[in-house]
């Protein structure tokens, strides 16, 4: 089950402004509080944070919403967060704030067909993430074969992704996070 949380809607609840901009730390904190409440009340495994009706996202607000959500209010181990509907400038802002704090999140940009990972992951983890995102549920062996790696290297990268809830492990395979 997937829960979609529309950030534009939460913004309108949190701030009395006619604009659709996620700017300032107080605004980010108010929106994050609403996200946390929605996550707490939901039984869904995956939460899609939908940025599609947001215009500007500044760095301070990206930090308050995304970085602090990952740092301070990490969902239960069986819960996953995916960012959805991001524009290029929003991707850049989130990637920047997460990278500075060694955090990472899965995201689907507005024009993209497959998931990407934003923030701080090493090259192996990024390549393994891409392999899982493109092929669907795969074993460590299949990732190793696809990337021409030793299996131990693929497993280490996939275990790291799983530990950071960027892929889901079930039935011995590594699954991309569902967005639909």
């Amino acid at each position, binding site marked *: 089950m997937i829960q979609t949380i529309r950030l534009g809607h939460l913004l309108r609840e949190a701030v009395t402004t006619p604009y659709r901009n996620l700017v*300032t*730390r107080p605004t980010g904190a108010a929106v994050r509080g609403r996200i946390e409440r929605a996550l707490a009340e939901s039984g869904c495994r995956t939460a899609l944070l939908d940025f599609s009706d947001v215009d*500007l996202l*500044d760095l*301070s607000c*990206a930090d308050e919403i995304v970085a602090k959500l990952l740092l301070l209010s990490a969902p239960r181990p069986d819960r996953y967060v995916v960012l959805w509907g991001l524009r290029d*400038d929003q991707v850049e802002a989130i990637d920047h*704030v997460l990278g*500075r*704090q060694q955090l990472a999140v899965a995201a689907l940009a507005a024009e993209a067909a497959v998931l990407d990972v934003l923030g701080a992951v090493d090259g192996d983890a990024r390549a393994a993430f891409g392999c899982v995102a493109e092929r669907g549920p795969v074993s460590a062996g299949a990732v190793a074969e696809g990337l021409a790696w030793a299996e131990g290297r693929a497993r280490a990268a996939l275990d790291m992704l799983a530990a950071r809830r960027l892929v889901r492990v079930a039935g011995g395979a590594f699954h991309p996070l569902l967005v639909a």
Partner: protein
Amino acid sequence: MTRIVEIPTSFDDRAMDHYAAAFGSWPAGERLLFDARGTTWVSPYGFVAMLTAAQAVTEARGERPILYLPASEDVRRYWARAGFLRHAAELFEVHGKVPRAASGSSDTLLEVTPVRGSDDVHEVVGRVQEGASRILLEVGLEAKATIGFTMALSEACQNIVEHAGTTGWVAVQAYDWRRRLGTRVVVIAVSDAGIGFRRSLEPTQARRFGDRWSDATALEAAWIQNVSRFRDPGRGQGLAGIKRYLGRWDGKITIRSGTARLANVPAWDREDVPMTEQLPFFPGAQVQVILPALAPK
């Protein structure tokens, strides 16, 4: 006793130190008279610097300063269009004929606007965004640069809300710098009368710097090391974001606080220097961002 502060004939960031020197000591022990009768031109930086000084006097419970308006009617009209006179009337005893309020000039992308809290930052960003198509058309900025510009504006305004301990001012203007740079530029000026970088960072950074701790080292810590007065690891993003944006679009920033001024000097600026110390004191912090429409030759 009254101390006369002569407003420079042409008042932009380059005239700031001359302007700051006219105050003597802070807080001013005498009533201040801002004499702008001979002033012919003021940049956004000049406007917010005048309001900041008057605000600092007000907050120090000094006597309401006097402002003599420019002798030129055209200049006074421009001051009205830029939104300066509306706010000046709240802080100064204004002498001279005040023109009726008029709508902003075509070069004014954001009139002089107070920044008092998070809601004001939303308003500033929203209004500049509404004018984004004008920025694109009239200044020639690329769409991506305009988004980054608005983000930089948001972060610069938030520095006031988060760190100054008081309110501040912002103004945005477009200029034709064809002779100086061969292109048009957009200028953001942000100023507050608050505690400044040194006092803001003192509790967390002063010990690390020891005897070297000063306005200049505080500016370096904020700009180069992205430190913040908050221990939260996510802090310091604002200036880091502005730095990244300016690097990409060949922009320039100057930050003046207390007695020091830091500048990131792009290749097109052959006059400025990265750090200037022992300047005449001026309260709070003053930030100016200059963004060329096209990469200058």
